[in-house]
């Protein structure tokens, strides 16, 4: 035994290389670090900071939302003549005249640009079958017009590829609105309603509609075969699918102010069938703020959370002042508090 010890301890001493680990703060896990702890001070401070940021933001957001003037008019029901209301689907699929007149009153002064939207509800543009039913390459360039695999069953007509193919394009929204104020037609500018990147890179300038809506069932709107896809902004807007079953799509913009009390007459063609699936159709006129459209939720939510934080900051402060307690109370370390510590 003793000789053994000697040999094993002397051997490494002879060899020049020691196995001693090199000291470094990293390997010894002693890197300088900040170790945040939730002391009452920090907690109160955090709550205060959040409330200080959130309350003003909430106020600003709420004001922004309040600034927005929005006119929403649901017309899907009203635009079906009373006698036809028993079977709206038959009406919409029938050949009768679909035009319909609506009157809107401007509640507050609306500054231009005023955006015109159609809003659909209970329409599942996000359904997987629907979302996938398109051919992006076909939309981009002419030479890919035969790439229609994803588009089934709206892929071809008698062997000739449909451009643009797929269910999305096929079900293009085709209600139209003609607006007039005091019998003066209001121009609705339909340029620039689609995202620029879509117009320039996703829809080809030399791709023209082909064989579109020529199958046995017509889905939705038709396209002007002489306009390239990149100019068909209605289509581009429609093809950027919505996230949720309730959505708005930009129809156009009015580039003149509307005064409070103005009455606007809308002559619309109620072509689009939402009656089959009990979908609602709404016409929306809205201005925008820096934050977008009208939605009070964000402002209210900011105010609420800010308020709660402020309240919590108060509660913690009071608790801290009323019953100051040593933080590192060693009694919390006691063994009796550790469940099962006695065993």
């Amino acid at each position, binding site marked *: 035994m003793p000789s053994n010890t000697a040999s094993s301890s002397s051997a490494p001493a002879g060899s020049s290389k020691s196995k*001693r680990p090199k000291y470094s703060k990293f390997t010894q896990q002693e890197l300088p670090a900040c170790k945040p702890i939730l002391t009452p001070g920090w907690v109160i401070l955090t709550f205060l900071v959040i409330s200080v940021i959130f309350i003003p933001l909430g106020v600003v957001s709420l004001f922004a939302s309040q600034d927005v003037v929005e006119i929403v008019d649901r017309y899907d029901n009203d635009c079906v003549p009373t006698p036809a209301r028993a079977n709206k689907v038959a009406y919409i699929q029938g050949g009768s005249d679909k035009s319909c007149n609506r009157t809107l009153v401007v509640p507050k002064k609306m500054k231009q640009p005023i955006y015109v939207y159609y809003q659909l509800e209970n329409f599942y543009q996000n359904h997987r079958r629907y979302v996938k039913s398109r051919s992006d390459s076909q939309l981009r360039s002419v030479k890919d017009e035969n790439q229609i695999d994803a588009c089934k069953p709206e892929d071809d007509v008698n062997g000739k590829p449909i451009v643009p193919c797929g269910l999305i394009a096929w*079900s293009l929204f085709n209600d139209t609105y003609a607006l007039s104020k005091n019998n003066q037609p209001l121009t609705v500018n339909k340029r620039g309603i689609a995202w620029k990147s879509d117009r320039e890179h996703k829809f080809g300038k030399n791709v023209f509609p082909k064989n579109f809506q020529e199958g046995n069932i017509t889905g939705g709107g038709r396209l002007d075969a002489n306009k390239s896809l990149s100019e068909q902004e209605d289509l581009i807007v429609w093809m950027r699918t919505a*996230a949720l079953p*309730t959505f708005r799509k930009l129809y156009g913009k009015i580039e003149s102010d509307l005064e409070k009390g103005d009455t606007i007459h809308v002559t619309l063609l109620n072509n689009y069938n939402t009656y089959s699936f009990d979908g609602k159709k709404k016409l929306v006129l809205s201005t*925008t703020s820096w934050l977008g459209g009208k939605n009070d939720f964000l402002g209210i939510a900011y105010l609420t959370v800010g308020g709660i934080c402020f309240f919590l900051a108060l509660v913690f402060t009071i608790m801290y002042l009323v019953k100051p307690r040593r933080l590192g109370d060693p009694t919390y370390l006691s063994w009796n508090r550790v469940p099962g510590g006695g065993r």
Partner: protein
Amino acid sequence: MAGGERKRRRRKLQLSKLFTLSSAKACFKPAHSQIGRTGFSRVVYCNQPESADYCDNYVRTTKYTLASFLPKSLFEQFRRVANFYFLVVGILSFTPLAPYTAVSAIVPLTFVILATMVKEGVEDWRRKQQDIEVNGRNVGVHQGNGHFDLKEWKTLRVGDILKVEKNDFFPADLVLLSSSYEDAVCYVETMNLDGETNLKLKQGLEVTMSLREEVDFRDFDAFIKCEDPNANLYSFVGTMELKGEKHPLSPQQLLLRGSKLRNTDYIYGAVIFTGPDTKVVQNSTEPPSKRSMIERKMDKIIYLMFLMVVSLAFLGAILFGITTREDYQNGVMTRWYLKPDDSTVFFDPQRAPLAAVCHFLSALMLNSYFIPISLYVSIEIVKVLQSIFINKDIHMYYEEADKPALARTSNLNEELGQVGTVLSDKTGTLTCNSMEFVKCSIAGRAYGRGVTEVEMAVGNGIEYAVAAEPVVKGFNFRDERIMNGNWVKERDADVIQKFLRLLAVCHTVIPEVNEDTGKISYEAESPDEAAFVIAARELGFEFFIRTQTTVSVRELDVATGGRVERMYKVLNVLEFSSARKRMSVIVRDEDGKLLLLCKGADSVMFERLSGSGRDYEEETRDHVNEYADAGLRTLILAYRELDENEYEVFTERISEAKSSVSADREALIDEVTEKIEKDLVLLGATAVEDKLQNGVPDCIDKLAQAGIKIWVLTGDKMETAINIGFACSLLRRDMKQIIINLETPEIQQLEKSGEKDVIAEALKENVLRQITNGKVTRLVKTGSGQTTLAIGDGANDVGMLQEADIGVGISGVEGMQAVMSSDIAIAQFRYLERLLLVHGHWCYRRISKMICYFFYKNITFGFTLFLYEAYTSFSTTPAYNDWYLSLYSVLFSSLPVICLGIFDQDVSARFCLKFPVLYQEGVQNLLFSWRRILSWMFHGFCSAIIIFFLCKTTLESQAFNHQGKPAGRDIFGGTMYTCVVWVVSLQMVLTISYFTVIQHLVVWGSVVVWYLFLTVYGSMPPRVSTDAYMVFLEALAPSPAYWITTLFVVMATMMPYFIFSAVQMQFFPMSHGTIKLLKYEDQCNDPGELELVRQASVRPALVGFTARIEAIKRSVMRSRQTGP
């Protein structure tokens, strides 16, 4: 040293001759008749190597070969349920069922598999390097014509004749032919095989003894028939046919690969088993692969997640089936835009049930994001790095032996934080197996100023002078009153003389005189005997010769003051046994006086004193108790003068008893000795310290304070076991000892002493008589249901190490066997403290936090997908772009969590050691209880719900930006994804308690990487980026709504958890929290205050020296109360 070595060898050589003559007769045994039958069919033509029939000598320890690497490692990978699931998902993603493109499913899987394969490959490469080194060693091989040339090990073939030199390993299993000794013996060290350190003697056959020169092998020709390769190390059957004669071969001639030639200049041998056929390779079993408790639990969580995935998919499938069926009923289409009349099977209303089944599969794929694909690989990476930290820990590096800690497996790091019971080997682990004479009590006066280790530990801080290393090994006694012959001037000089003489005479030690220096060393059965003799020598009674009948001692003559040699005739030795607990010798001194000298345990000795011999009994008893409490082994020394008649009667009786053949012979002898070992006169007591390893009491104290139970398994005598229990502060004198004797045929004793005075069901400290370590370990493991850690250093501990949840090997001196079968090797017992309390605690925290967080982040992500899917009438439309989906686990959330697993610390190492209470978090599994896991999951669900609904409401249908454009699917997905990335990153910030630059880099980096990815990916042509094209640059970034929504959603999602933690920290802090607060408040700078606080944190331990101090305090208090 060299001289001593030579001397010793010579002596051994003589012994070997004795041995050779007595037992090495070669003879045929019944087993030899089986040669040639099945199982005994090997045929070896010595000196005519043939490689045709048998394998070469290449030993492979690698897991894979170049060819098998790919299939085998892939197979290993996909055996994991989660990986298999992802493989199925990957395959399914090529079908139209897939809600996303195939690439996005394959990429993360490939990444994960590749990462693991690289890791496996690197590990195997290291093994390969080792193999190459081992197989490339050289050995002398007979090349014909009596020439021996060096050849590589791997080229050896069966039948080769080898020449192996001193201190070389045998490259294959050989039959010993001849050696440098005439009688063809050689010494073999088999430490690597069985861990035994003593050398084994092997001897070649007589017929081959004469082949002692290289040239002798020119015409050597023999033919060996023997058994087939098998794993039994201790059996070998074969015959050697030489010149037409058959000679039997036995294990005596077999030299095994893995053992080493010692003390023999060279040997010649014939190779009979090569490479994989060698016994050591045949015997090597895959070490049982151990998995930590946390990992086993993690599997359960994964199954739970599967269950959840399946049930969510099932729910979705039903609802999808219902809505799909309504699309086309009785020829009426509802959602006409889906063309339900002309549909594929996946969406066909007319086959709605089938569509639902298909949907179920798709949903399984979409929900795969619930299951963290990178969990396994992340954990593996983390554990490897954790092991590196363990290996690199400078505080666990043992300077003297140049040995750092070595984590041999990385699977068990976190298990180190959960150890409830430590099973320790004694010898070599707790103690150095060297005894030191420290104190004695003679004639009622205590001598010896040496400080024992336990005292040193107790007096921690009371400034003991640095205990100088004893000059003489085994002697740590300092007292000027009796050293250097001063004892003559003491009061009871005659008693002291008798005492020392007894020490010098009453033993069975054999002295060995070094011829060169004249120094005497002693060979004793047990180290404590040697300690006595050494003590006697150092105090002036040098024992120097033992013959069969005499003992000679040089002693100080009181009268003349000079040194005289005295010879004592040893008449009888009444040996020690654990039942007798004493030994005596009967000697006749030069004056012709008959003396019975006796030493023994206090329990048997005091009752044997004569009435007149009890002069110092009370003082001696006090001293003995004191010594025992100081952890020393005590013996009572007493003597008696015999008169001739009495002795004659005794000799008669004893020879009668010895010659009796009846079964109760032992009892008869006992009876006789009993009669003579009485009426003794007390001389005093000795105290010997079983030298503990450095820092053992301190370490045990800390472990006990951490609430870890400690068992010592030992094969010692019961008294020794109890003594060592005292020495390690495991036992105290006021504890009630429960001693259990197991009367099995082998009379194994199981001794268990527990504590009754505080809480009955408190921890039981046990000193166990060894049954088999392995068995005990299993018993403890199943009995307590706790994680057990076994620590040992010898080959006899292998069973224990493998059986325990964690085996820790001491990479000390007893060979490598324990280390090879351990999971973690440390150089000293005391490093266990740091290993458990610091590394164990950290690793446990890290891994458990990491796993919880993993599930949290994936649930948060996966459930937003599910919620969104619910808003697409369960058509499995993913909310996010394919690449966002696939890169979530890989890119945006993986590094922070890995960092958490590698670096996080709740408190620094110093505080881990200072507050052992922290360790209980692991033992009680507070951080990985089902409650905690489920709350993390619940937290994930809550976060997902908050994120989804807040996003949905804020981004409803109104315009998203100033240009009046509403948010589409791309914007919605992008915003929600941003929120998820922020939320999981901030959650990480709240979870991490240790922020170094790395953490900052990684956490904030993940968020930045997400924005960068969004930008870069969005800038790629639309062909690549599909619906993510320009989303960030064009739509998200310029819109204040995006930023303001992100801010709100993220903050609102974090709020509940933040409030929860704030409240918890304030009112229900966990231990680590409190300690952090303590540190924050700087209470730790005031030592007094700190001690006060620390006390509260310490487990009211019943063992350890702290407890001992407490006990002493208590007893003092009691005596004061009862005193007046």
